């Protein structure tokens, strides 16, 4: 049991528990707060995988931006604190089968060891590597993502404007 493995187990349990609260929680606000913990747990797991830049950006964007947005949406909906989310709905059987199938596939893949998934190269610093990659090899997806974001922003502004 190395340090990394021990920490990994702690973080994994924490993240999965938080995710379970998100999915199974009846109180929507508590679920949103649990989502924050889930994202933080994932950021910590990224650090374990040596993707420190990604971890910081995960916290900055997901926790600092998207969950705020989520909380805004929840708080601006009237009478939401009294509404309880339905945990089980009509598609529970189908989704259980699908989830179990994915789980089996993942375990199989982990045990078999898909070459493409075998451990990332240990880079001393991922940030310059990411920066260079985004602007050279992956420039097109980068720009397309920016345009998509722009479209989203413009759409949001138009929808929110009062005529």
């Amino acid at each position, binding site marked *: 049991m190395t*340090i990394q493995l021990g920490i990994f187990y702690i973080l994994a349990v924490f993240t999965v528990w938080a995710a379970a609260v998100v999915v199974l929680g009846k*109180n929507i*606000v*508590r679920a949103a*707060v649990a989502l*924050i913990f889930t994202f933080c747990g994932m950021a910590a797991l990224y650090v374990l995988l040596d993707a*420190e*830049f990604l971890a*910081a*950006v995960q*916290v*900055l964007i997901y*926790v*600092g*931006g998207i*969950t*705020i947005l989520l*909380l*805004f949406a929840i*708080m*601006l909906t009237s009478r939401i*604190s009294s509404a309880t989310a339905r945990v089980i709905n009509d598609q529970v059987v189908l989704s259980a089968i699908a989830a179990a199938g994915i789980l089996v596939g993942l375990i199989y893949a982990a045990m078999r060891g898909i070459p493409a998934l075998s451990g990332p190269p240990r880079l*001393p*610093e991922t*940030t310059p590597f990411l920066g260079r990659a985004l602007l050279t090899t992956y420039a097109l997806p980068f720009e397309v993502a920016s345009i998509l974001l722009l479209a989203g922003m413009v759409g949001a502004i138009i929808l929110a404007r009062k005529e």
Partner: protein
Amino acid sequence: MITFARLSEQFYALTAQWGIPWIVPTLVVMGIVVGVIVAYIAVAAMFLIWWERKISAHIQVRFGPMRVGGWHGWAQSIADGIKLLLKEDIIPARADKVVFVLAPMVVFAASLATYVTIPWAPGLIVKDLNIGLLYMVAISSLTVVGIVMAGWSSNNKYATLGAMRSAAQAVSYEVPLVLSLLGPVMLAGTMSMGQLVEAQGGTWFGFLPGWFVFPQAVAFLVYFVCALAECNRLPFDIPEAESELVAGFHVEYSGMRFAIFFLAEYANMVVVAAIATTLFLGGWRGPWLPIPGLPAEVSRGLFSLVWFQVKVYFLIFVMMWLRWTLNRLRVDQLMDFAWKILLPIAFANLIITGLVVTIWK
């Protein structure tokens, strides 16, 4: 070179030699670090509260605390702290207890976590992460989450509105803040806080110290203004204003919980000033003299420690000065200012800096 990193590594090696499992020295070091940082925050916050009262008093032709503890009321903060500790812990009847209790913890934890990468002196950083600056900015954005949680869980319409205002303000001002920080990062070529200070050695034109504030004055001003907004200080203190219509996100908090919000605000101020000092004012750099009886490195370290504190507290003084001189911006004016003025300026600065750096190198 005596650095904290090497010292702790030597400590780990020593305990491994004695056969103690790895977990013990790790926890010991972590405990010491957290203890020192919390003690620093506590003392700094107490000092800052007293100092704020003194500064505001002298700006307002008054004296401020004069009696508690004798000389200029230095023990006033301690007395206030004891008072807050002894207050009744009130949780509103229909508040969401879990979130209500959790909110101040999140805010304080976020403030606390940013102290890890502050370079206090050469070699004295808890952990010189290679994404140090990004880490600090990312963790600071967690305070917004705590604020929203606080406002929501208070079961008070005004607190919720205040929290949302605060969140909108913080999120809006984060963008020009990060952009303005990228200028010095480009000049230094690294996001590591320790290396950012190292990169500010040398001089400009032979006589100005090699700080980044000189080529990046605009970025410094943008950063400073955004920092005021992130700390919810006047002129951006709508979230806390009592005379505005909405009272603020911490209106339902009393006693120790309120004290934690308060503490976190001052801790935040120190962090924000520390980032500004590190990136723009040369961090711990400053003239030093060898102290007889100590190795040169140690005396340099001591002087650097002092210089860092001097710069940080000077910036905090400016923040306090502004608070007691200016009035509040209206909410929409605040947003206008962030998105229509600060953001374009920050972008322009980024582009120009990028061009200059590319051409020069």
